[in-house]
């Protein structure tokens, strides 16, 4: 598994660090990560998608506490995964951190923070991205 994080995740740095997405120039719908074509306008959106950043604020649509964790997440287990509806419209899947599970409710307001997501072993690349904290 050498080098996967290095290149495959590097391409998306601005989206994972800064919530860089895009917006349909025709209907205004937001996307994060950016999409090549608007799901509402289809071909009429080609060439009209504009860069747009999300503010980083949203609300919890659903969440779970993961006990059987993905590889490389064992040190954080159990951890909270959530689907968050960002204020601009798109929904994201991300961890909620710095709180206990009892504090999280459907509808809780959250804000994005910059955290370490994982690393490719002790000698590999470290990858960072968004997680969320309760407001």
């Amino acid at each position, binding site marked *: 598994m050498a080098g996967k994080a290095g290149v495959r995740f590097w391409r998306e740095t601005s989206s994972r660090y800064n919530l860089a997405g895009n917006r349909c120039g025709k209907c205004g719908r937001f996307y994060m990560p950016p999409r090549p074509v608007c799901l509402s306008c289809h071909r009429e959106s080609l060439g009209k998608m504009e860069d747009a950043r999300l503010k980083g604020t949203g609300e919890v649509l659903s969440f779970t506490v993961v006990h059987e964790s993905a590889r490389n997440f064992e040190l954080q287990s159990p951890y909270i995964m959530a689907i968050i509806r960002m204020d601009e419209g798109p929904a994201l899947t991300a961890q909620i951190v710095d709180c206990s599970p009892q504090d999280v409710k459907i509808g809780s307001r959250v804000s994005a923070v910059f*955290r370490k997501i994982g690393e490719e072993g002790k000698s590999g690349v470290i990858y960072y991205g968004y997680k969320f904290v309760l407001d």
Partner: protein
Amino acid sequence: MAAGIVSYGAYVPRFRIATESIANVWGQDPVAMARGLGVQSKSVPGADEDVVTLAVAAARMAMRRAGLPGNAVGAVYVGSESHPYAVKPTATIVAEAIEATPLLTAADFEFACKAGTAAIQACMGLVSSGMIGHGLAVGADTSQGAPGDPLEYSASAGAAAFLIGTRDLVALIDRTCSFTTDTPDFWRREGQRYPRHGGRFTGAPAYFRHIASCGRELLERSGSKPSDYTYAVFHQPNGKFPLRAAEELGFKPEQLKPGLLTPVIGNTYSAAVPLGLAATLDVAKPGDRIFVTAYGSGAGADSFDITVTDRILSQDRTGTPTVQSLIDRKVMIDYAIYAKLRGKLLLGGGAE
């Protein structure tokens, strides 16, 4: 052009471990240790935190307060002795995270606990000369002490960032000077996990000599005396040394109060003086003068003569926490969780 602080940001992780919890593991007297070191507890980074994430949090706060776009930053320097990579600068990741890339210069600094202030000096030079408009200097650490070593009680985690510029300043840096020698008081060899130190050698010939020499030099060049300053921030490897250094130079304990954080969050190494300064700026009023002297083992001291401007009150700091509120929001952990978070347990499992 005169350089100064446009804005600043800070971050302290929320976990704390009490001196007593560490002492009990190593069979030392908890009360005596806490009293002797002047440290009650220290901050501990979470499993998903490292110098990069701490630096980004502090940097983003500084940028938010400045209200400037990322491309206004012409340099990012991060000082630390616990950069996650030995080669690949923390500064590039911070630069990306504040959207300052690609037209900027960046590098990482190392000078034990004064890497952050060295970064401030470098930014001062770049902005004063007109080479760049703004420079971001960050001091951040997730320092470690060997298990059972006295340093384990104080080595902690934190970050503070300073956006340096020549306009719209919340504080002017009227003068800076440094005192640098080759002194082996505390070091870590390449590839080694924990630092080593010279025991009592770290005192008089190291910390005290450099702080006193540098501090006196700054006072002389400024033509000022300790009572001219409202506040003083000293490097704080424990809760005792800074008070003694202050007294030697003629400063009073009250002047150190807002900037002395080690007793509750431990020694945040490259962030120690930067955080102390940030905490002081949180309460400072226009016209206040702040005397700052950082110390880094190896060894050197950086001193700064700072004057707070009117802008400190008008800058919008809403939605960004004060250093005190970061200190107050805490979760106590025990030695077992601490050891797990700090990688002091030999984990098994798959390939590394």
